[in-house]
């Protein structure tokens, strides 16, 4: 299934028959889908339908889970993501990820940001400094932390930590940012800041965001993919532009989910 006519506009991910199993039990039935470059795609669907599994297959974080098997094919920017010669570390630099619960490392705010930079070969102090400031500004955190960069990152509030995580992804200048329910642990104000952030990222970055909040999907997404599950196996029901999926869903499941939960 591919997103509405617009697939011709540079899909950054071309996914063919992607299927995911844990210990031989299929969690996600084969999914075929194109994801548009520099657009915001929201993944919605009930709990356990495989949204997180799908998302983590996109940056090969699934490699970290020994009992997880991924089959099918994902082309990222034209080349096979699961090709043995693919440099996974580089792929993960190009595809950032924000988790549901922000994980900042127990070190200073500045070190949190410099660590991935150094890992990817940037040693110049002045340049690091510049990138740190830019990333924090892009994540709308600079004003709040500019005087306490040396403080432990874990002293930040939950919302600030999540924005630090965003900054830490942005500092690597990725092309794609995957977000797994980035606001579900946050208060409404912090949620709004993250949503504004997603708005600002649109056009320059490809954002793929899992959310349980349909209103949020309506607010931030260009495209929406709707997953459902039957007998413990998740599958993609349909995908399309936000207008199409919310106003004229093709499938009854989509209709009832979209309307039922809106109610």
């Amino acid at each position, binding site marked *: 299934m591919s997103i509405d006519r617009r697939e011709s506009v540079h899909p950054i991910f071309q996914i063919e028959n992607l299927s995911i199993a844990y210990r031989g039990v299929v969690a996600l039935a084969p999914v075929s889908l194109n994801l548009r470059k520099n657009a915001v795609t929201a993944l919605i669907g009930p709990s356990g339908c495989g949204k997180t599994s799908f998302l983590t297959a996109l940056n090969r974080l699934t490699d970290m889970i020994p009992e997880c098997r991924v089959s099918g094919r994902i082309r990222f920017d034209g080349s096979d993501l699961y090709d043995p010669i693919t440099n996974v570390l580089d792929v993960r630099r190009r595809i950032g990820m924000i*988790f549901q*619960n922000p994980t900042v490392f127990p070190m200073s705010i500045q070190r949190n940001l410099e*660590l991935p930079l150094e890992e990817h070969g940037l040693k110049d102090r002045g340049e690091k400094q510049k990138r740190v400031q830019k990333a924090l500004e892009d994540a709308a955190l600079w004003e709040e932390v500019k005087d306490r960069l040396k403080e432990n990152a874990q002293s930040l509030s939950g919302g600030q930590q999540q924005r630090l995580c965003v900054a830490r992804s942005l500092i690597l200048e990725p092309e794609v940012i995957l977000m797994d329910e980035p606001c579900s642990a946050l208060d409404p104000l912090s949620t709004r800041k993250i949503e504004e952030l997603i708005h600002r990222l649109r056009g320059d970055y490809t954002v793929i965001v899992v959310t349980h909040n349909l209103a949020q999907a309506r607010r931030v997404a260009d495209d929406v993919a709707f997953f459902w599950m039957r007998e413990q196996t998740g599958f993609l029901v349909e995908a399309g532009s936000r207008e199409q999926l919310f106003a004229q869903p093709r499938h009854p499941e989509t209709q009832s989910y979209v309307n039922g939960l809106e109610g």
Partner: protein
Amino acid sequence: MFDFSSNHAGTNHRLWTFFVWTSGILVFAIFGLIAGDVVWRGIGQINLTFLTDSPTRSGRAGGIFPILISTLGILGLCLGTAIPLSLATAIYLHEFSRKNGASARLIDRSLDVLAGVPSIVFGLFGNAFFAVTLELGFSLLSGGLTLACMALPLMIRSTQQGLRAVPDSFRLTAASLGLSRTSTIFRILLPAALPGILTGIILGIGRALAETAALLFTSGYVTRMPESLFDSGRTLSIHIYDLAMNVPGGESNAYGTALVLMILIVAINVTAGLLARMLLGRHIRLSFHQTRSLS
């Protein structure tokens, strides 16, 4: 059936309180008695010359300088080998080997057995292997390596526990940032596991400083100043043992030495504690944070 209205609960409660308090007091009293005894009888022996002189007349007179040096030498050797080995093993077991894989299980099992082996057996092994087979003879080297074998299981276990305490989200987040396995281990996991690692080192030091049996067969018990790591030398614990058991009239210096040993152990513990607090204030806050966000 519980009957809360009866006096039972009250009596029980008082009984328990009594028991808990007396146990506490008893433990403290035993510690106080031992420490007090050592301090009381040892304090008179300690002065600068006791620390800087060589023993004379089999240790009845003179000081303990060469013995202090041998002790530190053996301890240094023990830690110098045991720390890197235990880190490497724990990292392998916890971060690389497949959980419940054959090799991990084998190593795990061996560690449990090793931890329960009496030190005298380590002494025999150390003598046969380091002193004889590797031709290191009775030397600080043989002694230090034997102690390293003894401290290894303790230190590996503590490091494993330290690594286990690091949330998986750290590993996933590090991976999502494109950090290599090596960077993740050295820059994120080991610093976060430091509390466990330090605990292991302190336990290891304690075990090494307390050891006598294993060292009699390996580092020997000459009181001479060791000139190299291939020389034999006597540790504080062996000195105490020898003075107390084999040297009539050596008692007062045995107590002096015991006091030095106690001060050394306390000093190492306090230093480690301060170091830990300095390095790890942040980790304590970390676990607090996580507990809080769970509730």
